[in-house]
């Protein structure tokens, strides 16, 4: 028998180390999103966690998956950089991690928005959310950071992010991690 595929071994090892239970990498569409939500729903149901937490995880996941579907880009030439979604289950919390290539021109804006959101308390986030909703209605600029504010409000945790260099002059790989506690404080 030949040796086990190295990438398979590495994937399995990282999944074990990081407690990842689901990874999807590839094109995101409505069907994929639906099936991932249904998988997670089944998983949460079987784990017996609080309904409120379940709802929270589900809502944040919808927001993150919609985001990645809207902003996905794949380098058609190489096909080695794709959007991805990772579900991590730790003892006391879940992590929802998304990754997608992002145009370098938008990096600073995304960074500023997340930093702004991370620097606010619950009350300030609520006010910012109201303001952002109003602004997006007036200017019709889709999003306007509304997604980040919404996710931060729902998770009540800071958003973690990073940008990684990829083999592209115009894109970097943007990863966003949210954390949802299993027990409501």
């Amino acid at each position: 028998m030949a040796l086990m595929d190295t990438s398979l071994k590495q994937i399995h090892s990282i999944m074990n180390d990081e407690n990842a239970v689901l990874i999807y990498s590839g094109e995101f569409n409505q069907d994929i999103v639906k099936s991932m939500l249904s998988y997670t729903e089944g998983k949460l149901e079987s784990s017996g966690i609080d309904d409120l937490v379940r709802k929270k995880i589900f809502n944040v996941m919808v927001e993150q998956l919609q985001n990645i579907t809207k902003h996905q880009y794949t380098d058609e030439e190489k096909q080695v950089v794709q959007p991805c979604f990772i579900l991590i289950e730790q003892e006391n919390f879940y992590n929802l991690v998304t990754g997608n290539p992002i145009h370098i021109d938008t990096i600073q804006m995304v960074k500023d928005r997340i930093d702004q959101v991370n620097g606010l308390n619950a009350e300030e986030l609520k006010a910012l959310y109201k303001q952002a909703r109003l602004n997006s209605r007036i200017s019709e600029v889709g999003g306007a950071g509304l997604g980040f504010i919404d996710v931060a409000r729902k998770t009540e945790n800071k958003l973690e992010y990073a940008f990684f260099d990829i083999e592209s002059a115009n894109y970097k790989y943007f990863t966003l991690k949210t954390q949802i506690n299993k027990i409501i404080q």
Partner: protein
Amino acid sequence: MEYTYTLQKLMAESNYLLAIRDNFESLLSKSVFSIVESQISNDNLDVNIKNRIFSVVVECVQNICSNDKAHSTSKNSILLLNKVELGHNIVVGTKLNTERKNRLEQILTEISTSSIDELKIKRKNIISTRATLEESQKEELALIDMFIRSTGKVKYYFQGEDGNDCFLIIEIEISNN
């Protein structure tokens, strides 16, 4: 968070679409099937090929991953789906105790040296001669089914045989034609 980028890179390089690590208890099986179904329903695959992929996944999840009671509470099994040049690969991995390892190794050695016709006869015999199947026969049937549905394109490895546990990986290729 570098692992995110590393994982997607590893997945993309080998065309892995999906990786699930779990104990695949029955409640989850339905969700696993629906996620696999959504992966293959986008391809313009013949319905027979889709059924073959789906049947192999069912066998993997129901009889290989979720059969080890000793490890049922931990996420010791893994299921991956990847696209290869001529079809799809289903990869299943599960942790085994020594007893199950010896049993499965014996079954796999026997199956892998049989022809597809011999396997079909064997399958028929197991089903027709016994009303209720024992665990080991369910496993044997599942493995025979994988070999038949993939026309023998099955590879397996036993990894990390330290102490009492080892990890079995089975790769099943389903061709598009």
